[in-house]
């Protein structure tokens, strides 16, 4: 499989503290790459940097050969990179179905011009998106919750809404920040199954930050280990579990 996302010499500093200090790794197409490491290693910052939610001090992020550094969050999203958040980030006062509609790629239909001068086209567009959203909702078992406000759902259900929302855009790359955090085991199983099914198509790749090692070894073919802002090693989960440096890093914290 080819490399779809290439991160090179990434540096992010916040007021003199280098949260991420020269990180280099690659993600292969059609796979889930795991990003693990002790607390404070800089994993979420790497995710934020790729999504342009934080400013890079140095380095390059190439997505299918194109440079992402310097773009804004919404521009990165429009190139097909979607994300979920560590603390689930749903639109609490929008219904579950509306939450998914917000994941649909923006265009003329949802612009001000579309609202004023193209109401009919906007309705047609919306009807298509509603159909697509319902399909995704029934795939993840949330079909009967479509009219509920997303703020009324459980943590795990919110996570499913978030993942489904990111799929509305036909994203080809997903950044997942601890998708299993605060999710009960049954629902966690369901999310893992969902993710596996999604990458099996071959068109979607993911970078997943996760603390649950069982999930990582089950889903990720390649694992990047970070500690204190830099990459400790990269390899399969078996390699990682054998490595003494990794054990030390986790023990030191």
């Amino acid at each position, binding site marked *: 499989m080819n490399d779809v996302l290439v991160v090179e010499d990434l540096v992010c500093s916040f007021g003199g503290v280098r949260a991420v200090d020269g990180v280099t790794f690659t993600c292969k197409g059609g796979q889930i790459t795991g990003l693990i490491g002790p607390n404070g290693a800089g994993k979420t910052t790497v995710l934020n940097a790729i999504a342009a939610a934080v400013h890079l001090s140095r380095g390059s992020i190439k997505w299918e050969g194109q440079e992402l550094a310097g773009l804004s*969050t919404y521009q990165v999203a429009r190139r097909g990179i979607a994300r979920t958040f560590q603390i689930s980030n749903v639109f*609490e006062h929008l219904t579950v179905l509306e939450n998914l509609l917000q994941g649909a790629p923006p265009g003329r239909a949802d612009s001000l011009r579309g609202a004023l001068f193209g109401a*009919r086209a906007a309705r047609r567009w919306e*009807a298509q998106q509603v159909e697509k959203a319902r399909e995704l909702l029934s795939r993840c078992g949330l079909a009967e919750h479509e009219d509920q406000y997303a703020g009324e759902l459980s943590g795990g259900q919110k996570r499913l809404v978030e993942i489904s929302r990111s799929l509305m*855009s036909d994203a080809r790359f997903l950044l997942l920040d601890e998708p299993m955090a605060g999710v009960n085991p049954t629902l966690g199983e369901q999310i893992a199954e969902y993710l596996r099914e999604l990458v099996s198509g071959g068109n979607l790749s993911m970078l997943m930050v996760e603390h649950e090692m069982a999930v990582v070894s089950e889903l990720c073919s390649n694992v990047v280990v970070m500690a204190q802002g830099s990459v400790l090693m990269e390899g399969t989960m078996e390699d990682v579990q054998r490595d003494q440096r990794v054990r030390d890093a986790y023990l030191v914290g």
Partner: protein
Amino acid sequence: MSYYISSVLIVTCVDLIAAWGLDLQFGSAGINNFAFIVFAAAGAYTASVVSLGSSSALGGFQSYVGGSHWPFPLPILAGMAVAGLLAAAVGAVALRRLRGDYEAIVLLVLSLIATGVAQAEIGLVNGPAGLSLIPKPLVTGLGLSSLQYQWVYLGWCAFLTALVFLFLRRIVRSPFGRNLRAVRDNEAAAAAGGRNVFALRMQAFVIGGVLAGLSGAVLVEFVNAWAPGSWLYPETFALLTAVIVGGRANLGGVAIGTILVPILFLEVTRFLPSIGYPGLIDSLEWVVIGLLTLIFMYWRPQGIFPERRRRFPSRSSGAIGSGALLSSRSAFSASLAAPAGSSHVAKSTAAPE
């Protein structure tokens, strides 16, 4: 009495336009525009100076910049344009990085500065005395008695209010309106979905500003005078209270809130026997308006008529494409049927973040 009723109704129309404009910014897009009245004032002053004629015309007793005799309805359009431009300029600075409380503080200070400048810079819009003798549009051409003119003007205001209602309903029900509510709920997630948060907030801010300008211009052509005392910052809070009491992001609710708070409440107090020193009741009104905001924010932050839950017809109903895509339960039954959890959820965001 007929004169009084028509006057109250005209002011109701003006306040409805303003409250809906503020609701688009505050209720839909989540912008805490504490300077809303400044944009109404900009519209009012603009409509005044382009209809008053040269400042030396009436013996030069008032001084202001510009001055022309534009025919109806150009002064109103000019007022809307200037208020919109002002909103674009203010928004370009205030909406870029500031959020929540800080955004509110900056806009509140802007409101205070604007009053200060208008009072101190006499040459701009005649300082603290303000502008007067602003002509009523078409008053000579129509040849009506002043009472008849009142009712005709009310018809014109009602027409504009209906237009604004239809315009806003179109916006809030569209996918664009949902983008605004998404930005209000969670900016990071909206941006992660490819939405340009700044552009969306700016669009809501400018549209709200234009509507503020419209309300100011229509009001000034009716009352024929405009001074800094007419647009002090508490006026913004009267409108904000109307939005909070009626129900944010619900056009019908905001209309009820407007009729209850700035109209009914402020008019009824006129008929109370005067107590204490002169002006006591006027001052107490503001105390009560502040209390109303607090009470609603604490016990019913979603307002009397909460935001409607958008439902989409199922595929089997065949409504897709028929224009009835957006169905929503009546706000009233929704408020009754809402589970206990939802009012709690509403409370958590209505509080300033």
